[in-house]
């Protein structure tokens, strides 16, 4: 396989009798951004979940950075794929504060480096003041921003965003689109 960031080859996926994806392929180069649009139930989320390794294609292969990640099995575990994922729902862990959520997703760094990166991340996403709050103390927009910050925290090589602009106000949307291209 070539050195594309993502290479999806003829994948198929069904849930029972419902075929969600049939003979689907795509290729994405490093630094490229791809938006997938379509009606509800057309398989957008399923595709992202398979890229993340949360679901397995019934047929076909997925390559990440030239490496075979999935065929009919998951070959690379989700946390080994160096991806960031923003789910449709914020899915913040209820037993962790905002800061703990980000710390959990951080890569292994020296303490000072980790602190700086965390500080920068929270500042960029506008959640510095929320660091000690728990998910149930956040509004919908704030929770969404935390989820986005968490996806960036691991410094992923591939960022998967599933309807990321839901619950964000106009300024938040503009900030996110700007930062997604040039995070920190």
């Amino acid at each position, binding site marked *: 396989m070539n050195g594309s960031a993502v290479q999806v080859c003829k994948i198929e996926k069904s849930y029972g009798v419902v075929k969600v994806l049939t003979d689907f392929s795509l290729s994405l180069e490093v630094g490229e951004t791809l938006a997938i649009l379509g009606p509800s139930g057309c398989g957008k989320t399923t595709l992202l979940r398979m890229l993340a390794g949360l679901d397995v294609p019934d047929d076909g292969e997925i390559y990440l950075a030239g490496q075979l990640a999935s065929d009919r099995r998951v070959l690379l575990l989700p*946390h080994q794929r160096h991806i960031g994922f923003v*789910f449709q*729902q914020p*899915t913040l862990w*209820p037993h962790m504060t905002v800061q703990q959520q980000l710390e959990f997703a951080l890569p292994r760094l020296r303490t000072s480096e980790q602190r700086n990166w965390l500080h920068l991340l929270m500042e960029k996403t506008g959640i510095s003041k929320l660091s000690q709050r728990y998910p149930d103390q956040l509004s919908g927009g704030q929770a969404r921003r935390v989820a986005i910050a968490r996806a960036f925290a691991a410094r992923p090589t591939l960022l998967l965003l599933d309807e990321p602009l839901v619950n964000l106000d106009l300024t938040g949307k503009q900030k996110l689109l700007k930062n997604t291209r040039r995070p920190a």
Partner: protein
Amino acid sequence: MPLPGYVITGRITRTAFGSTLLGSRAHVGRRESYVAPVVVTCDRTQWQLLGASLLFSAAVAVSTMIIGFGIATWLAGHKRLTWISHFLLPVLIVIPPYLYAIIWASPLNAVTIWFLDHWIIAPAIWGWLNAWWTEVMSYLPLAVGSAIVGFACVDPSLVAAGRVAQSEERVFWRILLPLALPSLYAGASIIFLFSLLEYGVPALFFVTVYAIETFAQFSLDGRPGPAVLTVLPLILLSAGILYGILGRVRQVASMRMHDDESLFLFRRHSFGWRLFHGVAITILAIQVLLPLEYLLRSVHSPLLFWQVATAASHEVATTIILALMVVLTGIPISMFLANCLAQPGRANSFWWIIVCLPLALPASLLGISMIALVRIPGLSSFPQAWMTVAGSLAHTLPLAALLGYVVLQRTNRQYFEAGSIFQRSSLLGFWRIWLPLSAMGFMSGGVLLVTRTFGELEATLLVVAPGSATLMMRLYNLLHYGASPEVSALTLLLMLLIGVASLLLLVGFILAKRMRMNGEQL
């Protein structure tokens, strides 16, 4: 080859074959070939016994659910009494049926004697009536719990939408009740199954049920083959019922729990409802207060309690050690099994069968299977202490695993998925995400394992090593001589141990809540 020990029979275990076993200790040390050909014929008496047992269990399940339903709906209208459902019911649920039987034996005997003296009802029916009442009492907390869970699973907005158009009673019958039905059905089926496989309670009231057949058959010749064949109709029936229950359990597990809003719907009741509630609550009060009053009265003094507790110190220590061994072994296994059950895909069908199969087997058959296992050359060196642990685990481990499964199902699956993406290693993900989110289920499972071990008798009785009797066995042996202050004191002691274990669970829940671990799973 050392054999696993002894069978301690009940006071009277009359089998359908007409045999009577009266000895208190029947040695089963005779070595038999476990591959010997087996021919068992089911005679008419046996089929009649199976029919009677089915009717008995159905009567227990239906009447328990009706009373439980009444209590749950009454509690729904009394928000200040939620401590009953949050604290009292869980404590009552974990008390084993056999303990209820011991508690109720004397009051019921007194009533029976009075009725027999006055020739009001034929003596033959009294054993069944006493066993029915005791089982209803022991499964009542489970029935109330399943009704409460059923109502809590109903989306309050659906009820609110109904109330706009219809009267409260109509909304209750047409919306709330049908939506709560899966949990009610699951509760009734579980009670039916437990009652069908349980023989300790009926045996105490001199009633022979089909579940005892396997025990009796094995005691006759020490061969597991005929025992298995004898109990085969029961196993097939239980497996069928289990299949029905599991669908409902999965359905309930996938439903979101709501605040009790929908429960506090009905404030204006008709006379019929008030009467129904009155009867149900009176039964609940009797269930809690009367046996406790009887036990405390018959123990006489704290000194007697202390003397009895001291005399049973060896059994208490054995029971506690056994319970610890069961928990340490059972929690990791139940975690593994719950995780396997929660995995999507067809592969989990295999795990469902593995987990649920022991529930379809009478406890005594599990004990017999273990004896048969250690007779196999090569397995005979299996330590006997672990046989007792395995005996205690056999019936409770599936329940602990199912409890863990329900909690995993109720927790947003995306939390785990997000964890699997952002974790640095699988171990860290397990420690920081999986464990805190599922801790409630496994803590509850742990307490269930402990309390059921305290009360387990039927399986461990068959496999326990000589000289390692548990508190429950001491109690059981003492019962041969009828109810006494000593029996009451030991029962209180056992209840105290169960109470302490339940209290620990409650403290754990409160701490977990404070640590904000409850999230969406409660």
